[in-house]
């Protein structure tokens, strides 16, 4: 009696339904496992992941090495001082005579082009054109031809041509000198001497003195890599941030030089402007907020501010995220999400008809609609667990290899779960669709599915490029990609900032190619809303396709 009672309690309608579902799901799984094509498709997917991981290790992981983003670690003139150090001292990196600690010319006065008095005596360092009657010449003060310093050894060997200078002959270059018969010289260049100088009309002569040469320890080149980090304190309401750590914006005389007419270009290739963002504060970075004042809308730095950030922190992190988002979108949603259903879902019911084994299943007390549902569930059990394991595999490997202090990057896990979930929804939607197409037209269903697959592929790429484009929303994977975009924003809220930093500070991270903020937030800008909208769209589509498939199959005669 007890036994009978216990049995009847267990034998409820629900448990029977459960057993039927279990049997068909299990049968479907075993059938799929027994097909070679299943293993081929799953194997190809796995190989694709291995390839991508190799790419990750080879290029993304390598990319975490520090890069000289502003290019100031070079030493072009070979004087031992890198560009960054030369810039701090106001020197050119094209002139090996100019280097930190080198003597500098300080001007005292000058005879201009139109001044009345054309002669001057004294012991100075000079720069200009004139006839010199020397008392003393500093012949040690020499330089190269193009630096304009007169080489007195050459001058002694050069007789001035006959006739009057600027009438009968002209000096060939700045730094030229020659001697007359009467121990006087014509000079056109820089030199140090004592005596009287007569400046010809229409010429100019400056005079002053050279500072003492002093020794400056050359900085190692590595000092000019990652030396101008992004100085952002994370306080959104503070608009003006950033600091010119390496001093190549703050250097005052660049402005003078610019006014002088000689242009300097900053690292963006634009004319140097220490208040490029026009906020009245020199050498800062302007962080502009959106209307809600809770998100950064754009970042505008002044010239050469925060232009060489820590690559480990910004490039590495961004590249890592780019890889995960790219793999999630391209490999998981678009490739695996499309090919698994194409190979495995199309024949879920159709193959049974073709194999002549359908009647075993349909001569049982089970509705045809139920049957399709359980077949799809079996297919989803196989493909879903595959996607779950594959994302776990790639996820764990990249989380270990990826940048960051911890052994494993925990913040990656929700993103991978999101990728797996989005792929699963796509597998369900395509599975229901392809299965239904296979039912509607057993003969042409596969071709219709392939055409559809091409459409989906193109729309997926367009969605990645621009999720706001309306046409691309008429596709399944558009919505799955939205889920990934949204999950990324939830798991890594600073992704938007990283993306804006990349474009503001010229960091080539690729993040802006593969990730855009979610589009379908119903105006709330809330990523959770976009996820819910996408889940709604995808599951509605899946249920609709399942329903169409069920009603087609219900009225189908099975020969």
């Amino acid at each position: 009696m007890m036994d009978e009672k216990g049995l009847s309690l267990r034998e409820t309608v629900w448990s029977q339904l459960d057993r039927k579902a279990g049997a068909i799901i299990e049968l479907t799984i075993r059938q799929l496992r027994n097909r070679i094509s299943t293993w081929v498709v799953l194997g190809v997917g796995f190989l694709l992941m291995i390839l991508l991981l190799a790419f990750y290790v080879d290029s993304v992981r390598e990319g975490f090495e520090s890069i000289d983003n502003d290019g100031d670690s070079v030493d072009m003139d070979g004087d031992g001082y890198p560009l960054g150090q030369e810039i701090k001292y106001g020197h050119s990196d094209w002139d090996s005579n100019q280097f930190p600690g080198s003597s500098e010319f300080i001007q005292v006065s000058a005879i201009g082009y139109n001044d009345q008095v054309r002669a001057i005596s004294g012991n100075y360092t000079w720069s200009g054109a004139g006839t010199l009657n020397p008392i003393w010449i500093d012949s040690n003060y020499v330089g190269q031809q193009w630096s304009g310093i007169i080489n007195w050894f050459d001058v002694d060997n050069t007789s001035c041509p006959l006739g009057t200078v600027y009438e009968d002959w002209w000096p060939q270059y700045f730094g030229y000198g020659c001697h007359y018969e009467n121990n006087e010289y014509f000079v056109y260049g820089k030199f140090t001497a004592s005596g009287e100088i007569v400046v010809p009309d229409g010429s100019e002569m400056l005079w002053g003195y050279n500072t003492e040469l002093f020794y400056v320890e050359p900085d190692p080149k590595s000092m000019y890599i990652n030396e101008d980090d992004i100085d952002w304190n994370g306080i959104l309401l503070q608009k003006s941030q950033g600091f010119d750590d390496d001093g190549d914006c703050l250097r005052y005389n660049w402005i003078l030089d610019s006014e002088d007419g000689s242009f300097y270009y900053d690292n963006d290739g634009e004319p140097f402007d220490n208040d490029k963002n026009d906020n009245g504060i020199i050498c800062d970075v302007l962080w502009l907020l959106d209307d809600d004042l809770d998100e950064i809308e754009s970042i505008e730095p002044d010239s050469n501010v925060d232009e060489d950030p820590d690559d480990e922190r910004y490039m590495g992190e961004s590249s890592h995220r780019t890889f995960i988002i790219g793999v999630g979108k391209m490999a998981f949603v678009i490739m695996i999400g499309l090919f698994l259903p194409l190979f495995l879902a199309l024949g879920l019911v159709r193959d049974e008809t073709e194999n002549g084994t359908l009647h075993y299943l349909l001569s049982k007390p089970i509705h045809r609609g139920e049957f399709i549902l359980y077949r799809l569930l079996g297919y989803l059990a196989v493909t879903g667990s595959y996607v779950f394991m594959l994302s776990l595999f790639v996820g764990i490997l990249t989380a270990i290899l990826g940048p960051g202090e911890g052994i494993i990057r925990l913040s990656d896990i929700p993103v991978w779960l999101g990728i797996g979930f989005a792929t699963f929804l796509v597998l369900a939607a395509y599975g229901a669709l392809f299965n239904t197409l296979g039912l509607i037209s057993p003969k042409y269903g596969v071709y219709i599915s392939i055409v559809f697959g091409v459409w989906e592929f193109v729309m997926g790429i367009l969605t990645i490029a621009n999720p706001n484009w309306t046409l691309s929303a008429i596709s399944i994977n558009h919505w799955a990609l939205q889920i990934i975009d949204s999950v990324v924003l939830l798991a890594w809220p600073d992704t938007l900032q990283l993306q804006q930093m990349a474009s503001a500070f010229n960091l080539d991270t690729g993040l802006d190619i593969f990730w855009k903020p979610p589009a379908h937030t119903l105006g709330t800008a809330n990523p959770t809303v976009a996820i819910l909208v996408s889940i709604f769209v995808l599951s509605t589509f899946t249920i609709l396709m399942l329903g169409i498939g069920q009603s087609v199959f219900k009225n189908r005669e099975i020969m």
Partner: protein
Amino acid sequence: MSDLNKKAPSILLEGVSKWYGEVIGINDISLAIEGGVTGILGSNGAGKSTLFKLLMGRLKPSQGTIRLFGIDPWKSTAPYRRIGYVSESERMYDWMTSLDFISTLARLHGMSREEAIKRSKHVLDFVGLEDVHHKKIGKYSKGMRQRVKIAHALVHDPDLIILDEPLHGCDPIARTSIMNVVRELGSQGKTVLISSHILEEIERITEQIVILHNGKLLAIGNLHAIRDLLDQHPHRILIKCENPRDLAKLFITSGPIYGVRFPDVGQLEIQTNNLSAAHDIIPSTLVESGQKITSIENPDDNLDSLIGYLLGGINDG
């Protein structure tokens, strides 16, 4: 889901027709079957499989109504709780063992896994496959496959069992064992529907037959009654032996035999008007002759002759 009507007949067809475009599969069949083994006889294309597919809800009747236990099988799957169906299709899941195959399908009747395995072992025993249930079906002989199919149809202890050409292509041993199974089912009081195009096969199992011809119901009733009618008509019996001439002398003197022919070397054809009387004397005569007999054939004792006779009878009437 309405409860199955316990009082309704197992099978009820009223004016059922099924045509595929221009081709008629079944034409205006009315039939009620309840209890015992019923043989559905008909040559290829007579409509046996169409009839079974209609019963199994795979096809929708073009006209008329079909009821299994009072329920329309096209609209509801409820009757299948009490029905076991063996299709003519020879395709199976060859990669499965027979135990797997049957227990998986048994679970579609709502059995638990353990129950399904227990029941499956039981039915595999019943059809005589207890030793091989862990072998893959792909490695089975034709007769074993056929028995697996029958076992699968019995696993839920159905009240109605439909077998579409279960003896087709089986060797004599498998044939005998299948026939025994079907007889046993009949004796258990189940309703069994078995189709065949070979009269002799059905004769060994049941007396209750339905004859289909060109989609129409040609005859229904007791096979012996029909056969007795047939016996009054001329029959031929072909005997292959060493010396037909000597044997002919013995036969020509006996009552029911009215003629002999020698169609080929080592062959004797005897003609009779009373088949059962002839059957009574043939064995003793053969023993008496002392000859080595290689075969006895009954070229007129087949479905075609029966149908021809029945059609002739109708035409005569």
